[in-house]
């Protein structure tokens, strides 16, 4: 594998941006750090979501399921195991769960896949509620000495891994195979691509990342219960943010996460009951005005400038 000058420059800029982001807790420990945690969380979730759903166009609503599983891994294990091992364990369980879901559903296409993934979060939530009812347990307390800054740094590290993984996948045969599958699955199969295996392998990435994100964020909730950990709204927020930014580029979702987080923050502090409305309107805006997200809009503008220069 050879790196061109642009690659090295991009890697350097990414590392610089990461360092600047990592300095945030030194400047502020309240409101802005809280926003930083939310942005870092959704960046990890939306970017990893787009790694799979961007090229394949399979809309997954399973984020909440993996996320919830991750919070429960921390919730159940925090008294016995060190935090870092729980994050790793959550990633492993998330990846295995994603592989199982993938094997069962990725043969389905389009709307069947969407419905199944939405149902998955509900299924896992009901199972945990059932277990809790039968054991007489209610929620779980997650008490650690990890503060907001610690959580932020963990999430930032996870974001860095996601971007690095996304960059490497984009240069790999697997990434190329996924692009072919997204364009035409029949051609992919007739070009020698094991389409089922490629899809399952890549679906494991958002599964693992969402579970790790949940595991990292569990200490922030202090008390976790199924309705909180498996909130379906999370899946929808991730999809909207990723599509708003544009799922066709690695940095696309980030461009959607930042403005959307600020927007949601402003709405929920001024009109706390209208949050769902904002999400709905955002969905309509994306579908009608920004089908390719901000990335698509940028491409269109660049294209227009280029053609104008030619004439």
């Amino acid at each position: 594998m050879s790196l061109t000058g642009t690659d090295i420059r991009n890697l350097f800029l990414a590392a610089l941006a990461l360092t600047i982001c990592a300095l945030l807790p030194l400047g502020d420990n309240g409101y802005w750090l809280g926003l930083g945690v939310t942005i870092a969380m959704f960046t990890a979730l939306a970017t990893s979501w787009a790694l799979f759903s961007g090229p394949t166009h399979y809309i997954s609503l399973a984020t909440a399921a993996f996320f919830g599983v991750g919070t429960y891994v921390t919730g159940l294990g925090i008294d016995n195991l060190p935090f870092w091992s729980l994050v790793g364990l959550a990633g492993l369980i998330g990846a295995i769960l994603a592989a199982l879901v993938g094997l069962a559903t990725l043969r389905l296409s389009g709307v069947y896949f969407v419905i199944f993934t939405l149902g998955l979060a509900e299924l896992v939530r009901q199972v945990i509620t059932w277990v809790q009812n039968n054991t007489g347990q209610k929620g779980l307390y997650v008490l650690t000495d990890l503060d907001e800054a610690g959580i932020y740094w963990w999430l930032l590290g996870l974001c860095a891994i996601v971007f690095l993984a996304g960059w490497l996948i984009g240069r790999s045969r697997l990434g190329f195979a996924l692009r072919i599958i997204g364009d035409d699955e029949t051609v992919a199969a007739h070009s020698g691509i094991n389409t089922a295996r490629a899809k399952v392998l890549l679906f494991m990435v958002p599964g693992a990342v969402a579970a790790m994100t949940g595991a990292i964020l569990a200490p922030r909730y202090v008390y976790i219960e199924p309705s909180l950990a498996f909130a379906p709204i999370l899946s929808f927020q991730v999809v909207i943010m990723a599509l708003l930014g544009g799922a066709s580029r690695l940095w696309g979702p980030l461009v959607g996460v930042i403005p959307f987080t600020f927007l949601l923050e402003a709405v929920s502090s001024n009109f706390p009951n209208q949050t769902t409305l904002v999400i709905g309107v955002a969905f309509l805006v994306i579908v009608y005005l920004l089908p390719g997200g901000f990335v698509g809009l940028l491409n269109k503008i660049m294209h227009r400038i280029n053609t104008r220069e030619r004439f």
Partner: protein
Amino acid sequence: MATPVLSLRGVTKRFGGLVAVNAMDFDVAEREVVGLLGPNGSGKSTTLNLVSGALPLTAGDISLWGNRISGLPAQTINRKGVSRTFQLVRLLPSMNVRENVVAGAVFGHRRRWGHEAHDHADQLLEKVGLGGKGDMALGQLTYIDTKRVELARTLASDPKVLLLDEWLAGLNPTELQIGITLIKSLRDEGRTIILVEHVMDAIRSLCDRCVVMAAGTKIAEGTPSQVLSDKEVIRAYLGDDDA
């Protein structure tokens, strides 16, 4: 006869009550160009889909150099060296011309990646008559050029057996001559080719042997001039009065 490259025995495909392909038997020898002919709806494309693994067989066996390939998924059959074009051209719309060809080179029979795949794609584009057009978007291509891209992608994994599904259909007379010359050059390289075709000029000048189908069944087999004068064949195409 030595072991045939491809051999079909009792190959049958049923869609519900409809028998699209009925007990087809034929062999294809190495370096042979076999034409698969027949009126519309006679099961030619379905037969090709059964060979390439696009559809599962209802009954029968297909083997490649004596090894059974029927029942295997399309990607495995492709990796064993069988590559195809589609009746309606299928290209990858998000990619440029070169990437479309590279797509055929990375995962198939003979695999290439990186610069090697890139250079190989450029050589193939040169060969099919698209030299220097690698960076173009698909939208800028004419109809015959999209067919050329698809052919280059099909060739990119160095397949032993080529399945061409009406690759010459829809071309104007000049393009047709170019197309026939191109397929001839593939035959001269020693590839084994099965082509589904309606264009008689092409059949006469390209095929060593023809298999004619009607209503899912093989009705004739032989050299182009033999089958084209066959009574059954004339009846299948033109009806009883002309036979």
